[in-house]
């Protein structure tokens, strides 16, 4: 379980958010939503301690990741898979090597085992045939899927998706959403999805955390969100015709 307690972060004089607290239960998928620039990506970078908070704590299975020494912190980070917004693939190596990268350094597997695990991870994202492609040859959607294969290859307990559908066409976005659901089920993984794509939220999430006005403005299940009378949340989720229709249909 991940417990976020009274987290506050600012960059210089700019307050990002303050006193953010919520829990993420094992096996659930939580979507962190909010306007662009509200600090969603900053928040997930605190969960695996890529950024240090001004105050507050993040407990992973009861241990505060921000109070660990660097060696323990690095070990704990291996429990997390991260899909970055721009995929963050290493452009000097090909698809296979990108996915094999963590295995080569953090496992004692033979070349045969590495190959099998990489191909298994690529099969989860339906990219077995692209294993020898250079990263420059991959489309945006393929890059996200390779990033996802790399994120799951060490069989993490938690996976964090930073804007998984941004910049993708609706069909590819839908494929990525289905992958998130499949991976959560097949690998029994806890998923944290940072997004402002409400279609994605409704599709993949069990719970929602809404960041607004430099704080955690609302937190609850997707069903509760649909019924919520929270004005800022309603304004956010009904910002498109599609979402208005969804809400009208629900009510």
């Amino acid at each position: 379980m991940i417990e976020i307690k009274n987290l506050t972060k600012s960059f210089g004089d700019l307050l990002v958010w303050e006193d953010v607290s919520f829990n993420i239960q094992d096996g659930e998928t939580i979507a962190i939503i909010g306007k662009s620039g509200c600090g969603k990506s900053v928040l997930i970078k605190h969960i695996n301690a890529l950024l240090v908070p001004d105050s507050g704590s993040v407990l992973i299975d009861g241990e505060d990741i921000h109070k660990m020494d660097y060696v323990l912190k690095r070990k704990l980070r291996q429990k997390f898979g991260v899909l970055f917004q721009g995929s963050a693939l290493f452009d000097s190596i090909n698809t296979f090597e990108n996915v094999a990268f963590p295995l080569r350094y953090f496992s004692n597997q033979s070349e045969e085992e590495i190959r099998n695990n990489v191909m298994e991870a690529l099969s989860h994202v339906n990219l077995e045939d692209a294993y020898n492609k250079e990263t420059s040859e991959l489309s945006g959607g393929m890059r996200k899927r390779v990033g996802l294969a790399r994120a799951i290859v060490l069989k993490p307990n938690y996976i964090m998706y930073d804007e998984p559908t941004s910049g993708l066409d609706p069909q590819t976005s839908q494929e990525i959403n289905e992958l998130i659901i499949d991976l959560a089920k097949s690998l029994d993984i806890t998923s944290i999805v940072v997004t402002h794509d409400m279609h994605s939220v409704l599709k993949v999430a069990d719970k929602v955390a809404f960041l607004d006005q430099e704080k955690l403005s609302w937190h609850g299940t997707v069903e509760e969100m649909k019924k919520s009378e929270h004005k800022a949340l309603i304004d956010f989720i009904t910002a498109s015709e599609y979402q208005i229709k969804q809400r009208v249909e629900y009510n």
Partner: protein
Amino acid sequence: MKALRELGNYSTLLYQALRSSTEFKTYRKSFFHEMVKIGYDSVPIIMLTGFFTGSVMTIQSAYQLESAFIPLSTIGAIVSESILIELAAVISSLVLAGKVGARIATELGTMRVSEQIDALESMGFNSVSFLVVPRVLAGIMMFPVLYIVACVFGIGGGLLAGLFTGTVPAADFLLGARMYFQPWTVIFGFVKMFVFGFIITSISSYKGYYATGGAEGVGKSTTNATVISCMVVLLADFLLASLLL
């Protein structure tokens, strides 16, 4: 104030790099890769730089020292001593600040702004050990090797320039070079290149590692890395000369 903060961050990065230098398994592969990129790949440009520096030195010295009272061997002595004690190290380092330093800053800067460094850290890597340590170690090992190349081609270039322009016969040039040769100057050159290698690779790594702001930010980091490296190399050259000569 900003300069102090930069100095503090740079020192912190160096401290982290020093602490991470024991994790040889993490950076072994990239260390050898960097030795090739910094050393082997820079040989042509260092050959050319050395050759033309020596050639120009010979032609200019011959022009300035044109006198019946000054033996021609003096030109060989001036050129070879200048190359060994100063020019091979400093001119090569300024060129390498542009070639090696700019490459390191751009590579790491691009990795930073495209979140590849975050990806490394989030996988559990020590990104300083993986990215900074091999570059700095390869730099301090390969710069002295490049100094040898610069010296050989510098003195060779001076010799050939004297020969082909007819200003200094090869025998006189070599006589002068041998007569005033002191092994200490070569050791001093090695010490300089060791220091310059550290300065250029560490400053460039620092500037790239902490790059911000997309393509423009990477460009700015690269420019700063090159300019600051050149300035610090010249300052270090002055300090080393003051301390060791």
